[in-house]
């Protein structure tokens, strides 16, 4: 199926259809799709193919979260009639498992990139003209250049990450023991995921968040449900609370928050967001328009310089691996002349993989109200009515937001494993389905996806296992 140019007629080593700078989610997806479409591609990476997501992001964190799930299952086994004892967490074992997963996927990716005939260039690149990237003295020329240099963990002014007691996510992934206590600065996706892991592993955890809610970008109902669940799990959190300072001792940190309260812990995790990797890479010098360090683009991922595209975390918007994939694919197809449709940011699903999971796609109720005024309807189906969720002993809900008489524009879910339901939810939102379209497709019993079905039935005015 692939249309790779055969080896012999390949363009000269230093001139390509596409030069991609950075081989994270956005960059490698672009390279793979471009090669598939018969374009010649150079993919420049200074570290490892796969970028943040594969090595220090999505994959290792989700491995930790699965180990956490296994620990919880053992801890709570008696509830299900299973006599098991949780003796402890063997961090060397956890890391071995995590690294094995990463290693295997890395091998697969490397094979894939090689198999498609992409020229992988090892080294740090710099944009030296709209069509050239320099790597250690060698110039790689592309008809088009795609910037995909990703992001790095930010800190706050005056808060110094020492990698010992004050950590970023990257260092937190390499701990060789479970801390007895942690303060997590930032209640967003990454903060909540680490808090969840550590709690499952037995630590005392306190999240400090400046905004009024945990996972503040989610529908308020989701934030509240997560807060309730975290409270039950014994994860402390202080929302609406600004970080003031930290005192780093020999074997502890003391965090002071606005108002003067202090929290002591073994470690402080700084999870206050990620900034774009765009500094000193020649972008600004070549006239690529930037805004607060991010590369601004139009909806077709075009920067202000005609030959230069940008994808992934350096472009303002959702910092998610699959948004990077989607943009990378889009750009490759655009360059190949397929005239693809722009990626609609609102149809990109979002999952926070803590326990319980939070998943959503489309507009929150507040956003929908802003956009459509009073012309919206919402429906919340409580997982208490869902057999499979009862079997898992999880609490939560499926909430739908629709335009009155119109399509479903937002789906919001909280509960164990609901991240897997977002696949269905995104078809509903992406295809602008009405509850009436979903209603006739009765869902498998007893599944959690049945709760999505029931919510649509209820919103279509035909509640089955729901009070009308």
């Amino acid at each position, binding site marked *: 199926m692939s249309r790779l140019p055969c080896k012999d007629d390949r363009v000269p080593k230093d001139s390509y259809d596409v030069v991609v700078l950075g081989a994270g989610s956005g960059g490698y997806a672009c390279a793979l799709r471009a090669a598939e479409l018969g374009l010649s591609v150079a993919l420049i990476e200074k570290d490892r193919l796969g970028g943040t997501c594969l090595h220090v992001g999505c994959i290792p964190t989700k491995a930790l979260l699965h180990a956490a799930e296994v620990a919880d299952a053992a801890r709570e086994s008696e509830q299900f009639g299973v006599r098991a004892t949780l003796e402890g967490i063997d961090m060397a074992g956890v890391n071995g498992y995590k690294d094995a997963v990463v290693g295997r996927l890395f091998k697969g990716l490397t094979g894939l990139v090689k198999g498609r005939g992409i020229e992988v260039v090892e080294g740090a690149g710099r944009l030296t003209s709209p069509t050239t990237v320099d790597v250690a003295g060698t110039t790689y020329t592309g008809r088009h250049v795609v910037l995909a240099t990703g992001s790095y963990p930010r800190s706050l002014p005056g808060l110094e990450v020492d990698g010992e007691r004050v950590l970023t996510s990257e260092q937190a992934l390499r701990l060789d023991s479970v801390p007895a206590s942690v303060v997590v600065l930032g209640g967003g996706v990454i903060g909540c995921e680490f808090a969840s892991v550590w709690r499952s592993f037995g630590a005392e955890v306190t999240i400090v968040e400046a905004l009024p809610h945990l996972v503040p970008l989610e529908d308020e109902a989701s934030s509240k449900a997560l807060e309730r669940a975290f409270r039950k799990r014994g994860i402390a959190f202080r929302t609406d609370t600004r970080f003031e300072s930290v005192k780093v001792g020999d074997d502890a940190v003391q965090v002071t928050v606005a108002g003067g309260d202090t929290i002591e812990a073994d470690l402080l995790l700084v999870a206050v967001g990620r900034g774009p990797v765009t500094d000193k890479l020649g972008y600004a010098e070549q006239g690529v328009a930037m805004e607060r360090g991010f590369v601004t683009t139009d909806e077709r991922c075009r920067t202000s310089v005609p030959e230069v595209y940008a994808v992934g975390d350096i472009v303002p918007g959702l910092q998610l691996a699959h948004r990077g994939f989607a943009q990378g694919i889009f750009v490759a197809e655009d360059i190949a002349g397929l005239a693809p449709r722009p990626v609609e940011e609102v149809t990109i699903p979002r999952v926070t993989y803590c326990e319980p999971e939070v998943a959503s796609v489309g507009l929150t109720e507040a956003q929908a109200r802003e956009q459509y005024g009073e012309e919206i309807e919402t429906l919340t189906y409580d997982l208490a009515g869902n057999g499979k969720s009862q079997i898992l002993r999880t609490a939560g809900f499926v909430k739908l937001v629709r335009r009155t008489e119109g399509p479903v524009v937002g789906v919001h879910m909280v509960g164990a494993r609901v991240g897997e339901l977002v696949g269905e939810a995104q078809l509903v939102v992406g*295809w*602008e389905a009405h509850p009436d*379209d979903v209603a006739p497709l009765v869902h498998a019993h007893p599944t959690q996806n049945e709760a999505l079905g029931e919510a649509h039935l209820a919103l279509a005015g035909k509640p089955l296992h729901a009070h009308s």
Partner: protein
Amino acid sequence: VAVPTQREARAMAKPPVRKLAKDLGVDLATVTASGPDGVVTREDVQAAVATSSEEVALAT
């Protein structure tokens, strides 16, 4: 005014076909339906696109 046509559209085609029509700029209300119960099929939408582009071609 938009609401009734939307309801019509909903009845007239399955969601992926509606989405396709929207992406192609085809107004479902103007498409001749060939599916059972007056449902507009994907082929109907594609035929509508072909016809309109032919018309454009003839006009120029």
